[in-house]
């Protein structure tokens, strides 16, 4: 099959799986997950074929050396808007990690939703399963995990989500990228609100959708601007066309002194702020943890939030259109500022979270901030590299945390104490013995996130960002990101220590249990990538290791850009910083939390003082938005627009007109019609004196007999005929 055909077909299996499951197989759990996983596998195989074919093409990414194909989609006057698919080096590497993580998440979901377990005793659709009571051979009753009541639906949604992500990756233009982007938005809404009967999940779903939609409408505006300025939305025709870019950079947008290119890039970037949960639109992502864990992994690591960064990487030529390699342009500074601030801001919040998934959520926000920051400084390769490695190790961490929670739920069902929150890290401890596979893989993921030197992928990618910041002299960014990296290592170690090390702090943790193979296998596979993927991007001048392996990632992805970016010169200073913050943070985390006993408060609480509740409450951003955005908007909707403007102002004017007319009418009636016309002219003159007597007299003619009428008729006829004869003919 031609590679282009395969590329076209990539989103199809999961999409078909969605329709098949929704329409036909939703009653059968086994059939549904077979279709779902099978579809993911098909797309995975296709993606791998495409990826390895891409590797075998020489000078892949330069000029026409890509896989591309397009069709006309929308007629626009005399021209067509064409849409199509394209695989260039950037989309190839993204496709690679997307395919892997999606497949792993599909597989993981089978175990996570307790396939094969009995139906729950009191489970309802829309609520997480509560467990089922079974009687074993000896007559003892056990409470075990029960299967998710909406199991099939979950796979349908995952399928649609995967279809959206594949669409986004293979697009050759921003419009279909936006299509995939929004389909994922819908799926994230559906999946976060998967347990929709929980008010918290329901609200989180709406929050996610609406917050990202804020970004999306700006992005749509950006698309419209870009399209009207260039007449196309295709990557090739805009981002790989110096003339167009130059023209856009020269044109003023009349807004804040930005060039057209800068404004478009910023408008599109606002879409990313929403989608990748950057400050100030980050608020949805932590709440999105209400969804089942595979969803969190899917949305927060592998696909959706990555899509935001992917888009900025795509529009990088536009963002940097009027950049000459030295001082950052306004647009770039904005991007860099948002990214850097988000990185540190989210890291501080993560330090004070107790929920195992919330820590990861803030960590994701923070890591995405790293990438955005890198893009803002012009570090294209570093951002792309971190995007890929992060996707692997963050998916691993999320799935690992899901495994932990699953194990804890086992313990909760065993003790029957449902007040114990299986997600609270303070209820855990000592799980390394109970769940060894989960522990080791989580450890790998955590170390990758912290940037543990040399062996983990996270080290290489994060180091590259810091090196870029150093090389171009962005000191503020360098310091901030280093601090954020230190915090990252610290809270990661805090999480690992609290969860896995030490002694169990609750009975539930003692009875936790390792999860089935469908869950641990994905962990193991992702762990391999979390370690190994860094090796494809080792800088050439790195002492000792540099040059052993070629810096494949840099060469391959670098070919995506028109001007291949230069690798930054090696310097020991950022490397030293990297080592220091990673190892320092990890050590610190271990030291602070290694001896935490059950019931003991967070050791940080005392030294941080009032700062601790401030961090724990996420800098009070939710409250800020509730008061300054949601409340006024609700007021405008309910009171101003509807009650005041429509009901009172507009309808009031109408009713006033109507009542005035009524008043005029009733006055005429009461003071003219009734006394003069009706009574005087009508009743007296007309009716009483004239018509009534006449009527009475004439009524005698109404005999009711047919023949007398007939006689009258014949007589009149004769008269008329005679008259006609006499006077006319």
């Amino acid at each position: 099959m031609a590679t282009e055909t395969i590329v076209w077909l990539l989103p199809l299996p999961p999409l078909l799986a969605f329709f098949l499951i929704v329409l036909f197989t939703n009653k059968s759990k086994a059939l549904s997950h077979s279709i779902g996983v099978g579809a993911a596998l098909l797309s995975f195989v296709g993606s791998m074929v495409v990826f390895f074919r891409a590797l075998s093409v020489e000078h892949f990414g330069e000029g026409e050396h890509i896989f591309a194909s397009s069709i006309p989609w929308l007629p626009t006057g005399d021209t067509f808007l064409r849409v199509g698919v394209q695989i260039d080096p950037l989309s190839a590497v993204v496709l690679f990690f997307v395919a892997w993580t999606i497949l792993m998440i599909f597989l993981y979901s089978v175990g996570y939703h307790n396939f094969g377990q009995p139906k729950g005793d009191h489970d309802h659709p829309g609520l997480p399963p509560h467990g089922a009571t079974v009687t074993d051979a000896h007559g003892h009753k056990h409470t075990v995990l029960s299967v998710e009541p909406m199991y099939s639906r979950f796979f349908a949604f995952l399928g649609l989500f995967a279809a959206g992500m594949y669409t986004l990756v293979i697009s050759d233009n921003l419009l279909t990228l936006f299509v995939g982007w929004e389909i994922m938005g819908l799926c994230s809404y559906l999946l976060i609100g998967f347990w929709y009967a929980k008010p918290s999940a329901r609200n989180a779903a709406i929050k996610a959708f609406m917050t990202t939609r804020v970004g999306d409408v700006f992005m749509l505006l950006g698309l419209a601007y870009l399209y009207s300025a260039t007449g196309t939305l295709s990557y090739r025709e805009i981002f790989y066309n110096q003339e167009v870019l130059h023209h856009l950079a020269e044109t003023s947008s009349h807004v804040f002194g930005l060039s057209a290119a800068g404004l478009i890039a910023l408008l599109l970037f606002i879409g990313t702020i929403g989608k990748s949960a950057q400050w100030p639109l980050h608020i949805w992502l932590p709440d999105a943890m209400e969804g089942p864990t595979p969803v969190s992994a899917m949305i927060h690591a592998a696909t959706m939030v990555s899509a935001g960064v992917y888009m900025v990487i795509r529009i990088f030529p536009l963002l940097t259109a009027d950049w000459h390699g030295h001082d950052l342009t306004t647009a770039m500074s904005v991007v860099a500022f948002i990214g850097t601030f988000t990185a540190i801001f989210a890291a501080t919040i993560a330090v004070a979270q107790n929920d195992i998934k919330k820590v990861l959520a803030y960590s994701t926000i923070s890591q995405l901030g790293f990438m955005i920051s890198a893009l803002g400084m012009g570090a294209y390769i570093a951002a792309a590299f971190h995007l890929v490695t992060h996707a692997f190790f963050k998916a691993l961490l999320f799935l690992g945390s899901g495994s932990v929670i699953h194990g804890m739920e086992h313990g909760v069902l065993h003790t029957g104490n449902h007040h114990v929150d299986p997600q609270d890290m303070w209820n855990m401890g000592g799980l390394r013995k109970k769940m060894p596979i989960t522990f080791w893989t989580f450890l790998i993921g955590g170390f990758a996130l912290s940037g543990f030197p040399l062996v983990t992928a996270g080290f290489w990618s994060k180091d590259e960002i810091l090196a870029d910041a150093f090389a171009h002299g962005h000191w503020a960014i360098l310091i901030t990101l280093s601090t954020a990296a230190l915090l990252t290592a610290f809270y990661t170690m805090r999480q690992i220590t609290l969860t896995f090390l030490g002694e169990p702090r609750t009975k539930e943790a003692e009875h936790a249990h390792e999860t089935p193979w469908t869950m641990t296998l994905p962990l193991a596979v992702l762990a391999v990538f979390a370690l190994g993927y860094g090796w494809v991007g080792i800088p050439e001048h790195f002492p000792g290791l540099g040059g052993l392996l070629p810096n494949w990632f840099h060469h391959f992805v670098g070919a995506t850009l028109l001007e291949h970016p230069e690798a930054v010169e090696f310097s020991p200073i950022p490397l030293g910083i990297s080592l220091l913050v990673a190892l320092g943070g990890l050590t610190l985390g271990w030291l602070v939390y290694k001896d935490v006993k059950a019931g003991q408060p967070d050791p940080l609480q005392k030294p941080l003082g009032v700062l601790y509740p401030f961090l724990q409450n996420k800098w009070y951003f939710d409250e800020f938005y509730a008061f300054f955005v949601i409340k006024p908007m609700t007021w405008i909707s309910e009171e101003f627009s509807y009650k005041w403007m429509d009901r009172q102002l507009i309808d009031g004017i109408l009713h006033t007109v109507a009542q005035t007319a009524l008043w005029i009418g009733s006055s005429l009636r009461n003071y003219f019609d009734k006394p003069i016309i009706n009574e005087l002219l009508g009743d007296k003159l007309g009716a009483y004196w004239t018509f009534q007597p006449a009527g009475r007299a004439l009524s005698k003619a109404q005999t009711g007999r047919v023949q007398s009428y007939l006689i009258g008729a014949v007589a009149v006829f004769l008269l008329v005929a005679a008259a006609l004869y006499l006077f006319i003919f």
Partner: protein
Amino acid sequence: MIDASQVIFLLSAGLIVVSAVMVVSVRNLVHAALWLVSTLFGVAVVYAVLEASFLAVAQVVVYIGAIAIMFIFAVMLTRRDLLSKSEQTNANWVWALGLAAIVFVALAFIISGYGASLNRLPAAMPEGYDPISALGNALVSPEGFALPFEVASVLLLAALVGSVYVALNKAKE
């Protein structure tokens, strides 16, 4: 000079007029209906005189055979009045007589007004001309009167259904 056909015509005209007068004047309705039969027979003779043979036969078969008989049946079904020997004309009969007379005078006046042109005599039938087949063709050919003919048949059907419906004895009432 009076030829044979004129004799026949005058005889039948006399029959028609006398019977018609009897139809509208006798008290017994059965008799009136029988006088109608006689009138219609006279008319059939007139048709024959006019060489409209099909109509003459149809007049006998349809009018006398069906319609007049139907009248007799109806008269017998409403028997109470059949037995009544009271006055059979209403209070306005003088007016009616006057009007009928005026109508006759007016018609006669109009007819006489045409004068000599009405003294025209019938032309002889052309050789080989068959008025019955001509009538048949006229009734069924699309250039002729097929559509009115069909409409008339629909009318008959409607009348049939309608009269059955109207006369139906609704047991529940």
